[in-house]
């Protein structure tokens, strides 16, 4: 019997969730994700299966050393998020979430571009419902923008796949590089992957849509789309050097935006963008250590980023807002959420014994080993920046700082369990890191994160960044949170283009009006002239004498005769 791809159980099973009703749909979703994990684990480390469709052989299952860790962590993230969403009685949201996670898993398990395109678009179409499920005008509009951008990514992927097939005769999803730079179709595919990986200037769908999604929807969203893009980039563009520069920019600019952002879920979205930058740099470097670092970082990042989004989701659920200006002192009411958030913050910052330390450092070391000086410095600066926005700002402003007076209940039990599992992974991956390293694509590598210089240097970076925060806070130089929003590249398509469009429309309308008025004036003058000619005393309207008529007829006949002879 032909095996079905990992994730397909979730995609197909989600269609049956409405039959379970509001009370059981959430549990059904959780069961599906667990079943899908067992289904995936039943495959070999190196599995492949082809499907012949319309005479074209498609490799709809391809599990290898690169996709395996992504498939595993996607399943773990889906299970954790499904537990986190157990209290939600909105069936549509469960259907969308489980299908979305299943589509991302199936996408990472395909070996051809057509199957990838189908799953790629399915992740776009299903995930938008997690934004729309929030309801309201803002979420609806944000979801539409998100959908347009995501579908555009799919269209670029399909166009690239067609060009690739035209040029090489193959639809296999492998490297798009030829002689160090992308092929003709590869450029389009790179743009497609770049949108989903939130490359600079293509990034703003992330900060726009994720904070507007539902409490639980954002947790699902944070895990899959962008990391699927990272997997795809690692598969198709490993060693493409331009990615190093792109990744460096990605690590830096979100830090500055995160400093002044008031919505803590949006701060996390910027932080996500910054973390993707580390992975993109790793792919650009392309050495075995760098690719291992990228995969390890994606693995750890999915879990600690989910944890951070879950903790902010719990705050949003209980307090009704994640605006930093309206939060503070929540450690009183939500001690467990506070603890889990601090673990997530420590993990993303890269504190030793937590997961970020053992993964991020591989990418930085790979940059140093390949003598990329500026990328190395930038990644270190970005690590200090992570400490600012995710390590300190998120837990400090939500749970400590000034007490905003919220006396709420601790997060629901299912949310605490989900956060507990994610926090457990953050610790266990940081302590028993060989367990993580065994999952990485390149098995024969020698890397030890817990050396004295490395631990001391990392602690120096983080503790002096913390000291800077204390100094700036004490001296009043740290910018106060403000009830405002900050525009980003989205201003181009949310303000400038509509304004430009309206301006062009106005110009066309003015021109059109002027032209029509002129035409009417000309027609009017013509009509007046005509009426004057045909009036009783006009040239053509008055009565002529017979002799005049005869004279003119003779002149005309003479002219015809003359012309006849001349011709």
């Amino acid at each position, binding site marked *: 019997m032909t095996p079905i791809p990992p994730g397909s159980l979730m995609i197909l099973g989600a269609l049956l969730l409405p039959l379970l009703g509001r009370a059981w749909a959430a549990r059904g979703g959780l069961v599906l994700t667990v079943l899908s994990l067992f289904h995936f684990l039943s495959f070999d480390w190196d599995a492949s299966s082809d499907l012949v469709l319309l005479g074209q052989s498609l490799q709809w299952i391809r599990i290898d050393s690169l996709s395996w860790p992504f498939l595993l962590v996607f399943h773990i993230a889906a299970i954790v998020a499904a537990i986190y969403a157990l209290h939600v009685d909105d069936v549509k949201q469960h259907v969308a979430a489980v299908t979305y996670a299943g589509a991302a898993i199936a996408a990472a398990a395909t070996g051809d571009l057509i199957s990838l395109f189908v799953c790629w678009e399915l992740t776009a179409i299903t995930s938008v419902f997690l934004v729309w499920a929030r309801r309201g005008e803002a979420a609806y509009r944000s979801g539409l923008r998100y959908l347009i951008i995501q579908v555009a990514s799919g269209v670029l992927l399909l166009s690239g796949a067609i060009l690739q097939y035209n040029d090489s005769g193959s639809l296999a999803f492998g490297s798009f590089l030829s002689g160090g730079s992308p092929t003709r179709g590869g450029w389009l595919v790179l743009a497609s992957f770049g949108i989903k990986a939130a490359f600079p200037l293509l990034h703003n769908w992330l900060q726009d849509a994720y904070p507007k999604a539902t409490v639980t929807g954002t947790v699902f969203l944070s895990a899959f789309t962008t990391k699927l893009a990272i997997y795809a980039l690692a598969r198709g563009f490993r060693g493409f050097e331009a990615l190093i520069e792109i990744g460096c920019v990605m690590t830096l600019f979100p830090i500055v935006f995160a400093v*002044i952002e008031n919505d803590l879920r949006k701060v996390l979205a910027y932080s996500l963008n910054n973390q993707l930058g580390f992975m993109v740099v790793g792919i650009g470097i392309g050495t075995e250590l760098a690719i291992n670092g990228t995969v390890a970082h994606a693995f750890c990042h999915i879990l600690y980023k989910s944890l951070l989004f879950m903790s902010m989701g719990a705050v949003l659920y209980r307090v009704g807002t994640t605006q930093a200006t309206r939060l503070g002192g929540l450690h009183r009411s939500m001690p467990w959420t506070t603890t889990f958030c601090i673990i997530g913050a420590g993990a993303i910052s890269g504190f030793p014994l937590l997961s970020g330390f053992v993964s991020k450092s591989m990418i930085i070391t790979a940059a140093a080993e390949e003598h990329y000086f500026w990328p190395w410095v930038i990644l270190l600066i970005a690590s200090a*920046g992570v400490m600012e926005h995710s390590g300190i700002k998120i837990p400090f402003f939500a749970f400590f700082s000034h007490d905003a007076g919220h006396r709420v209940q601790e997060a629901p039990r299912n949310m605490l369990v989900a956060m507990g599992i994610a926090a457990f992974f953050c610790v266990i991956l940081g302590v028993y890191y060989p367990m993580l390293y065994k999952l990485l694509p390149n098995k024969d590598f020698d890397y030890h994160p817990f050396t004295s210089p490395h631990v001391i240097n990392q602690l120096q970076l983080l503790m002096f960044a913390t000291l800077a925060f204390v100094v700036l806070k004490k001296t009043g130089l740290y910018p106060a949170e403000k*009830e405002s929003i900050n525009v980003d590249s989205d201003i181009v398509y949310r303000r400038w283009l509509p304004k430009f469009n309206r301006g062009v429309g106005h110009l066309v309308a003015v021109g059109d009006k002027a032209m029509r008025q002129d035409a009417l004036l000309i027609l009017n003058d013509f009509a007046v002239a005509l009426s004057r000619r045909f009036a009783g005393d006009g040239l053509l309207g008055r009565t002529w004498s017979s002799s005049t008529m005869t004279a003119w007829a003779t002149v005309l006949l003479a002219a015809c005769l003359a012309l006849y002879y001349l011709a």
Partner: protein
Amino acid sequence: MNDSHAHSPDGDPTFWERPGTIRGVTRLIVFSCIVLVLAEFAYEHHHPHFALETSFAFQAWLGFVAFVAAVFLGRGLRWAVERRPEYYDANPDEPRWDIDPDLTSPHATSASKTNLSSSTEARS
């Protein structure tokens, strides 16, 4: 590390809000920074990749400078990108259904609801 202006509407500071704790945490941070700088003498850079790596307490000063630079760049950026909350959306505080039903219930009397609505009113 708490805000020096930390206060509690209940007038009953928790362990983390007490001035003594805040002072203690601040001292702990300063102390660990001193220890980490002194730790520079405890190991050798065996295979430095770049000359900068061998500068004294390189990652310490880099961490401090990078953090301060990020904050000041943020302050500068705010001048350029800051807009009022309604800039894009007519009603950024739309009611949402996916939060705790206690908060949205018309009979809810929790302090949180009071706070939330009062802050919204204050803004409007």
